[in-house]
């Protein structure tokens, strides 16, 4: 390879000494006083709240900052022996790859094969050598079947794999990735994780930003190098993994995954400086530590009798960070619990039940009349002639790799007022298309969609906006008014509902925490604030039905908690909420019912717990079950019974110091 021999552990990849950066001299430092060391094959996870400087730090590794943005730099930064401040990006790219957040905006080739070849062409390789390398990485990444496809038409997961393959082909010394798992289904996530392990095994150091800490809990070791990689070398034992937490651009905590994430999980808050501890740790604390003292002392867990029956070894008072650890600990506590089982069961019965089951404000939410109905709905991908002729198939888009032309195939279902329904399934399952039938953005070629007992038919989208509030994947994208207040009022004004919705808009802005920002220009707000303004604008006409498309994508822990509170606020007022998401944990916490889709069909329509209890269904629909559910099930197995009743911490309503869960009476009111 042109960029040197296989990397040996011990070769410095990143060396930062008091490094800092700001976009303009008069601005505050976005990144400051960063001291960091990384060596070949090392792994770095960067965590922090939105706006903490993570992305800027990542961009500094390949010189995007400051070469694209200008600005001012402090201290020193060396990446693979080069100074990214002064070394042109056209030279740095051979050593450093940076994959930004949205893969769809980084693919530009005519075909996947040409996408993979682009970086190699920049290195002036011979055509034959490029072709060999492209074939090699395509096989390693499992995307050989995509090589003649147009990258822009691939799914998000496939695009992410193509991007990773494009950098894998370059065999960089450092690969930095910004939220590489966002918006991917389970299968795509697994493929991306495997690809990253492949890279690391070949000696590439990895720097990753992610809000989802759970996904990276196992990344402490090395992996054996795959065959066929010329730059691959066996993973040395001394490769290290570290996690750094950023706040206001500075590193406020660093250490191993166990140290940093353990410290985050060890507190008594669900969100620490914008970072949410792993779901396992939150579950554990909710189950045990929150029942009383956080320090068991003599090893006995506090809480009700049946929970107290579990016994930690002394010193294990930190919550577990992985499913494996949690299950092992539960098993260790099992003999004691088994002895106390009958007494515990009696105690629990007297206490009115305790354990896993429907969520506060979710499963027990009372619902009203049917407000949405899909009756044997069929939709296709494309529009115009293609769509109208889809019955005959004459001009239907030509299927590639067996992909279906019909994206929704005879879906029948209903949603009631005050209900939260989550639509889950793999990429391309037809979830978004089904959601868009509600407000006429997609019209079915067969079947019928009814809202509020009226057919959608050919009613204009703008008219349906009175009844259906739709927040697309990036609602902040549509902002255009000079102030937040005007932005939120734009929809009602166009619908002639400006005065009729005054009270509702005030309620909405309060619920979304926008009261202090009403006069601010939307473009000057942070990402999280813009997202909230976008959601408020989408819902400002006081709709009876709310449709949310991937609402948690790109949101940090605080944003997720806020979103959950908004959803609770809506359902408490009898509004039906339908969300499309890949985030099973969020869906389990907020939705009372799941519609599971695959290949345009509904595989299941049931409560989250019922669906998560069916591994075959989860596998078929590429859904990763909520860790809390798995641990509840494990706990129940160890106790020899099925727990019932509310779970203390699975509801996100209380996350981040938010408002308390609404009672059923409030919900029904």
């Amino acid at each position: 390879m042109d960029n040197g021999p296989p990397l040996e552990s011990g070769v410095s990849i990143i060396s930062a000494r008091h490094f800092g950066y700001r976009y303009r001299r008069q601005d505050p430092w976005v990144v400051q006083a960063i001291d960091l060391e990384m060596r070949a094959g090392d792994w770095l996870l960067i965590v922090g709240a939105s706006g903490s400087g993570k992305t800027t730090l990542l961009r500094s590794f390949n010189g995007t900052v400051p070469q694209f943005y200008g600005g001012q730099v402090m201290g020193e930064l060396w990446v693979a022996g080069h100074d990214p401040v002064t070394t042109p990006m056209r030279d740095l790219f051979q050593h450093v790859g940076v994959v930004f957040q949205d893969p769809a905006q980084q693919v530009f080739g005519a075909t996947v094969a040409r996408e993979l070849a682009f970086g190699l062409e920049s290195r002036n390789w011979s055509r034959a050598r490029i072709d060999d390398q492209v074939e090699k990485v395509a096989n390693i990444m499992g995307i050989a079947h995509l090589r003649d496809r147009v990258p822009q038409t691939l799914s998000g997961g496939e695009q992410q794999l193509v991007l990773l393959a494009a950098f894998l082909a370059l065999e960089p010394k450092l690969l930095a990735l910004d939220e590489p798992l966002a918006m991917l289904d389970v299968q795509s996530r697994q493929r991306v994780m495997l690809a990253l392990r492949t890279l690391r095994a070949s000696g590439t150091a990895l720097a990753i930003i992610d809000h989802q800490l759970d996904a990276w809990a196992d990344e402490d070791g090395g992996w054996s190098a795959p065959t066929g990689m010329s730059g691959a070398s066996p993973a040395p034992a001394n490769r290290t993994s570290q996690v750094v937490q950023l706040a206001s651009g500075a590193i406020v905590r660093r250490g191993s995954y166990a140290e940093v994430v353990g410290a985050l999980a060890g507190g008594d808050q669900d969100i620490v400086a914008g970072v949410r501890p792993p779901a396992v740790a939150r579950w554990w604390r909710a189950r045990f530590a929150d029942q009383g003292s956080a320090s068991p002392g003599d090893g006995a867990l506090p809480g009700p009798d049946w929970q107290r029956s579990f016994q930690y070894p002394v010193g294990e008072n930190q919550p577990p960070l992985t499913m494996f650890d949690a299950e092992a600990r539960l098993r260790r506590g099992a003999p004691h619990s088994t002895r106390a089982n009958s007494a515990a069961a009696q105690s629990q019965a007297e206490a009115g039940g305790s354990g896993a089951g429907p969520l506060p404000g979710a499963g027990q939410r009372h619902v009203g009349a049917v407000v949405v109905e899909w009756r044997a709905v069929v939709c296709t991908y494309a529009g115009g002639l293609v769509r109208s002729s889809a019955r005959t198939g004459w001009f239907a888009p030509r299927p590639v790799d067996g992909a279906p032309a019909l994206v929704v195939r005879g879906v029948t279902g209903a949603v009631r007022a005050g209900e939260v329904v989550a639509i889950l399934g793999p990429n391309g399952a037809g979830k978004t298309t089904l959601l868009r039938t509600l407000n006429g953005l997609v019209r079915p070629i067969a079947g019928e969609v009814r809202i509020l007992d009226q057919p959608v038919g050919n009613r204009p989208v703008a008219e349906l906006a009175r009844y259906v509030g739709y927040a697309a994947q990036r609602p902040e994208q549509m902002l255009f008014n000079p102030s937040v207040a005007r932005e939120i009022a734009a929809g009602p004004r166009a619908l002639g509902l400006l005065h009729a919705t005054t009270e509702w808009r005030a309620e909405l802005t309060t619920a979304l925490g926008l009261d202090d920002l009403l006069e601010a220009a939307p473009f000057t707000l942070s990402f999280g604030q813009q997202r909230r303004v976008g959601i408020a604008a989408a819902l400002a006409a006081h709709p009876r039905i709310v449709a949310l498309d991937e609402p948690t994508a790109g949101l940090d822990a605080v944003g997720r908690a806020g979103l959950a509170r908004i959803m609770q606020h809506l359902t408490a007022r009898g509004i039906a909420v339908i969300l499309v998401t890949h985030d099973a944990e969020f869906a389990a916490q907020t939705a009372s019912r799941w519609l599971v889709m695959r290949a345009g069909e509904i595989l299941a329509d049931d409560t989250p717990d019922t669906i998560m209890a069916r591994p075959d269904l989860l596998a078929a629909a590429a859904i990763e079950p909520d860790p809390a559910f798995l641990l509840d099930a494990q706990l129940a197995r160890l106790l020899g019974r099925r727990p019932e009743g509310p779970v203390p911490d699975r509801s996100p309503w209380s996350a981040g110091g938010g408002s308390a869960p609404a009672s059923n009476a409030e919900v029904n009111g």
Partner: protein
Amino acid sequence: MKSRRPPSQAHGAPQAGPSAGARLDPRAVLLAALLSIAALLTSGNGGSGPSDWWTIGLCFIACGVVLVARAGASLAHTLRALWFVFILAAAAGWFDSGPITDSRSVAHHVTAALFQVARLAGLTAIGAWLFALAPPEDLAEGLRRWAGGLLPGVPLRYTFVVGAGIRFVPRMGTLFADLRAAQEARGLRFTPFWRHAGAYLGLMVPLLREILRLSDQLAQALEARGFSATPRTLPDLPGWRWREWLIVLAAVAMLILALTLGRS
């Protein structure tokens, strides 16, 4: 009941690019397209002669062939987007045929209108065919090599940007459709234009912002893979084989036929 537009998600209708085996030299495709356009523009005159009927027939056959081939979805989408232009073309053909005097002149007017519509549809089909068989980057590289004799030293980066720019035109269209959908979903109306002209601010401001953001991200993504590096491996073009010659000869034959019919 019909959908308004295709879903804009990246995982929309899957498309195959030209496979290595099926790739044609873009210069041949471009030359054939130019010859076909010349044939189309020189055949017939909208005067209800046999050549007009030949042109109409050939145009609709060409459209049909392209529609069922690889570029079908693209052409269908373009035809649908251009419906207003087709009406204008038909109107131009109709009013350009003079006053209506009898039933025969009505038929003449209809033929003239149909002729203009067919010619426009034929041009659209040729465009769809061109971009289906020759990716914009290949076209740009082909032009760069052709221009090499006249303008030696035209850097690849400029031709690449031209090619990538062409490729991103549909993405802009998708973005526009997305924004329009999002704004309509919250109650904004855009038709009729004269009543809702102000609402277009809600499209243009976000569109401009998103285009700037997208171009910025694309530039960063390109540089992250060494776009500015020199020297670099040039894109390979398949070169002229019998297939390329066949296509060009077919286009030449079509042009000759059109010229012959046009004189008759």
